Every structure is written in structure tokens, then in C-alpha cells.
């Protein structure tokens, strides 16, 4: 599949991943600068999955994401300024400040409601698939969720219904807790399941499923394209199990920049990789992995990479400025959003 991408494509894809990374770093920074207050979840470590899935979709496809949504919204192409303004609760944000970090969505790009209730996005995406199947065309629905969602009853019910009605839904389970599987470690960063392999769950309902290394853009994209194609051909749902190590900063309940902000030099300079998280930077950081591929294939020089990073960093700085400059919504405006 790799030959499918030319240099421009691959640069664009790396840029997207890096945009997510820099965006999430900005979110964390702004939180610690008290520019907003809320319990938030960062997408760091999962960028390759989000970008690959979005790349496999078309403009008419519909999506439901969950509490870890920032990366999905940016990967789909939303304006980082509007997204950041939303997280900061500004009227200029994607959702006039009503969504914040947990519920951010961009309906113009096909997002339906973003649910921060574990299991919610599976159930809503199933409904989107129902509507799309009923409609003419070949659009598909995508449900994005974590491994924890497979502990909620509604997820089992939804998979059953999708299989029964042969709905065009691509289920994307981003399993960032593989170590916790089967154990009951306590707290959020864990999937507490007696199921030995989470793919047994969709398989029970006869839904085709495949596990993929969530760190690797090409692998995820290849699978996502196949899954989307399966759904476009109206052959029923498909389940993607994308596994990544949990980024250390998301181990605690409130994210911490334990790994520091990403130095792009780690993509080529072994010496820059050191300390407690060296492993992660070397083997698990999907952005660096992809950057290294581009360097290796000659698609990008070190200078070009640095330039790209500078561009993205500037873009996010601009987004921060935009977000901070926005005003909060008018107090009474909340009344306008309840009913159509």
C-alpha cells in the first residue's frame, strides 16, 4: 500500500499527526496556565490511528467519537483554532463553548454527538450506520472508542444490532490499555474484562475483526481502507482493534506531560532519546515512527522535517492566540441551544 502515497501525501499526513501532537501539548499547557478548567484526555500516542482512519474516509461519512476526541476532530480536518477555542470554552469555538473538551464535535465534517459516556459512541455510531444504510449512497459510519467501552452492556447490544441489520459501521476500538487486559487494576486506565482477546467480542456476533498495530499509519490505513470498503459495499459492520501502548502521561487520572513536549530531533538523533521514557520515544511514539519512515524513504530531509515542525508549531501558537482572544458565550445563550 505504501506506494499509494507520494511525497506530498506523506508530508501532509505527518503534518496532521504532528498537528495533533502540538495541539495536545498546547491543551496541557493552557490547562496548567489556567486558561480553562476541566478534566481532559489527550490523544498523544494514538495519532497514527486517528489520522489513518480519517484518511480512509470520504466527506459524506459520519463519525461518533468519545471523551478522547481531540485527535479525531483535528485528524478529520477541523480548524485547530476553533477546536482550541472550544476547549477553552469560548464562543468562537466549534460549539460556542458548550462542548468543552469532553463533547467537542464538528457536525459540518460529519461528526454526530460526541459522547463522554463510556460506550456512547458505539451506540450512536450504530444509529448513524442505520440511517446511512437506509439512505441511498455508500457513506459509512465510524464509531471511535476505547477498550473500556467493551465493558458496557450497550456496546454488546449495539454490536448485535449492527450485525443483525448488517449496518455499514466501522467500529474503531483504540486499545491503549493492552497490559491491563483481564486484570482489575482499578481506576480508569484499564480494561477490566474476562475476555482473553477483545476481538472475541465482535467475533461472537459474527462481525469481521482484525487487530492492528495502532502506532503504524500504513498498517492502520490499510485495514481501515479495507473496513470502509467492506461497509461501502454494504457487507455489514467491521471491527478494527488498534493497539497502542498507553502514553505515560495518560496513566494518571489527570494527564501529565511526563514525557515532556516532543523534540522532533528524536526522529533522527538517537542521542536525544534518553531518560525514563526513552523506550516510548524509540518504539511507541507514532509521530516519531512516521517521521523516521519519511526520513528513511527520503521523502523528507531533516531540514524539511524541522521546517514542517516549525510550521505546525506556529499554527498551534496561532490557534492558542485565537482561542485566548475569544470571549466566552453570553450567559443567556445557553437557552438558545436546547431546542431547535
Amino acid at each position: 500500500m505504501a506506494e499509494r502515497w507520494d511525497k506530498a501525501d506523506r508530508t501532509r499526513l505527518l503534518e496532521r499527526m504532528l498537528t495533533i501532537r502540538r495541539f495536545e501539548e498546547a491543551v496541557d499547557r493552557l490547562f496548567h496556565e489556567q486558561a480553562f478548567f476541566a478534566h481532559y484526555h489527550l490523544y498523544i500516542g494514538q495519532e497514527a490511528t486517528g489520522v489513518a482512519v480519517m484518511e480512509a474516509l470520504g466527506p459524506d461519512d459520519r463519525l461518533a467519537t468519545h471523551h478522547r476526541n481531540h485527535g479525531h476532530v483535528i485528524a478529520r480536518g477541523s480548524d485547530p483554532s476553533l477546536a482550541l477555542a472550544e476547549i477553552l470554552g469560548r464562543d468562537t469555538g466549534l460549539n460556542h463553548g458548550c462542548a468543552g473538551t469532553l463533547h467537542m464535535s464538528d457536525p459540518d465534517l460529519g461528526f454526530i454527538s460526541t459522547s463522554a459516556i463510556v460506550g456512547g459512541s458505539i451506540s450512536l455510531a450504530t444509529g448513524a450506520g442505520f440511517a446511512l444504510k437506509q439512505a441511498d449512497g455508500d457513506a459509512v459510519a465510524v464509531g471511535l472508542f476505547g477498550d473500556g467501552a467493551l465493558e458496557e452492556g450497550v456496546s454488546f447490544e449495539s454490536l448485535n444490532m449492527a450485525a443483525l441489520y448488517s449496518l455499514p459501521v466501522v467500529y474503531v476500538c483504540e486499545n491503549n490499555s493492552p497490559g491491563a487486559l483481564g486484570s482489575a487494576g482499578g481506576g480508569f486506565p484499564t480494561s477490566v474484562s474476562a475476555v482473553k482477546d477483545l476481538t472475541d467480542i465482535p467475533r461472537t456476533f459474527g462481525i469481521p475483526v482484525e487487530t492492528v498495530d495502532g502506532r503504524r499509519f500504513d498498517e492502520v490505513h490499510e485495514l481501515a481502507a479495507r473496513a470502509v470498503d467492506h461497509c461501502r459495499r454494504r457487507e455489514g459492520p467491521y471491527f478494527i482493534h488498534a493497539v497502542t501502548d498507553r502514553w505515560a502521561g495518560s496513566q494518571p487520572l489527570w494527564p501529565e506531560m511526563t514525557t515532556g513536549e516532543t523534540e522532533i530531533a528524536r526522529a533522527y538523533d538517537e542521542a536525544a532519546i534518553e531518560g525514563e521514557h526513552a523506550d516510548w520515544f524509540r518504539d511507541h511514539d507514532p509521530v516519531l515512527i512516521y517521521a523516521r519512515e519519511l526520513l528513511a524513504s527520503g521523502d523528507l530531509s531533516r531540514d524539511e522535517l524541522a521546517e514542517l515542525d516549525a510550521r505546525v508549531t506556529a499554527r498551534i501558537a496561532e490557534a492558542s492566540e485565537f482561542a485566548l482572544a475569544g470571549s466566552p458565550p453570553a450567559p443567556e445563550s445557553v437557552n438558545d441551544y436546547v431546542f431547535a
Partner: protein
Amino acid sequence: MPTKNYADAMLDVLRTAMEEDPSFVVMGNEVLGIGPEGAQFEPFQREYSERIYFPPCSEASFAALAAGAAMCGQRVFAHLGLAPFTYPAFSSIANEIASARTSSGGRLDVPVIMHMSHGLLHGGGGQHSETPMGMYWNLPGIEIVMPSGAREVKGLLRTAIRSDNPTLVVTHAFGYGATDDVPDEDYEIPFGVADLRREGNDVTLVACSAMVGVALEAAEQLAADGVGAEVIDLRTLVPLDEAAILASVAKTGHLVVVDEGRLRCGVASEIAATVSERGFDSLRAPIARVARLDVPVSASAIHEAHISPSAEKIVAAAKGAVGAGAPAASGG
């Protein structure tokens, strides 16, 4: 005018929706209840078999499915069953549906139609006899429709299907066979407009759903005893026609709120609280609530009768109110 029961009235509307919207879908088991009226579904089912779904016993996912479809512009009439069967779907309704539009900053509509049956299912006991409208009304973001008869079923359901908001249409589990004069043609009853079902000068009886009939019965008995009761059918709880209630209380000075739901934090509580805030100066006597007693429903018919509102209880409450207050300006 033709006589139709609730089931006919519902089918009239569902048929129109099927005809005018090729994506309209009906989903649910026992859409017309578990009584003999269920059979009326069959011709409809044959005619539109491709757009009628009998989902698994999975209320949570099935409600969310309807909502997710609605977010993509499709209208699904989702019959969730008896009110207690909506409880497994409570997170879908409360967490996913009610707040979705607000959470999107007004960028996403959720025009889902949810239907359920409420009320005493004789002998059904604690898990089949719920009238949980207090709970659902405590949840902003959903329009709540409680038709009192077949005519209202038709007009209000029509409005619900056309609404761009989530609607919860609640019919009485034992009402599917109840008849009314119902026009054949298509019509809408607007939301938020209460229906003054009977005029009277001495006491206002506010009710919804099947309790409207019981209140009218009580009003007859009261009239025989010289008490003029005004009967208001709320028709929708969200939006609420506060003006109609306040105007009536301003006239009568006495208020009895009748509700099949439970006393605490129920519909009757809300109406009483609203009037005690905004209509206080009209009141000449304490407000009385005639609602289901604050205990779970037992399967015993004796217990059922004991805890439920009745015309007799309404009459007693109304007489108590009128007797307790200053004499009405003009006798009823």
C-alpha cells in the same frame, strides 16, 4: 366524524409519515400494546414491512440507534415499550439524547421520536406499572407529550414527528382501545397549548393523559354537588402552558393537580410549585395533589386502587380545597 381508538390514531399518523418520508422507520415490539389492539398493526406491518423493525430486547442500544440515526437526519419512531423498559435505556435518553443539542452548541438536531406506554398495568406490579413523567420532566432537552385521548394521540403525534427536537410521546398502556371522534385527515395539535376541557368557576383541576378523563368524571360529580370545576388537559409537559394554568387559577382560586405518577417530585409537584410561585396571589386555599402514593406499585388490585388517583379522591380534594378557602366569588 369517524370513531377511532388510540391504535387507529397512531396508525393514521405513522402511515402518513411512511408516505411522505421515504426514510421514515418504525422500530419496536408491541407498538400498539400487548392487548387486542396489537392486531391492528398487522396490515400496516405487511404494507411497510421493509421499514418496520422488531429489535432485540436491547432498549439501551435501540434508543441510541434511533438517536444516532436522527442525528443523521433520519426519523425513527422508536417504541421503547412499557415505561419501565425505558429504564435500561435511561443513559441513552438522559445522557445521549437530552443534552446532545446543547453540547453541540446548537449545531446538531436530534429529531428522534420515542414512544412508550405508561400507567397501571393491572397486576403488573412494581416493574410494569410506571408513570415516570416526573423523572423525564426533570431532564431538560426533550419535548414531552401526553395525549389524553385518541384525538390528541393523532394530532400530537403528528406534531412530534414533524418536530426537530427529541420527543417523548407517552400513551397509556390501557388506552390503546379507547375511542374518540377522530378526523380522517391530517392535523397537528401544537405543543405547549393546554386544552380547557371544561369550564368552571370554583376549582381548577389540572391533569394529563388518562387522568383527564378521570378529572372530567370528578367534575361531573362535583357539578352535581354545586361545585364548578374547570378541567385543564396539559397535553404537553414540555413545553408547558403555564399561562393557561395561571389564568384558570386566577379565576377559580383553587387548584387540584391530578397525576397518575408518583407524588414526590412528580408532575403534580411541579404544577403545584409553579403555581405557588407564580399564581400565589390567586390562591384562596392550599393546593391539593392527587397522585399515586409514594410507594412502589404492588401487584394487588386492592393496593393498586389504594395508591391510585380516582374520581372520588379528586372530588374529595376539590371539596376540601373549596371548603377550606374563601367562598368563591360566584358559586359553581
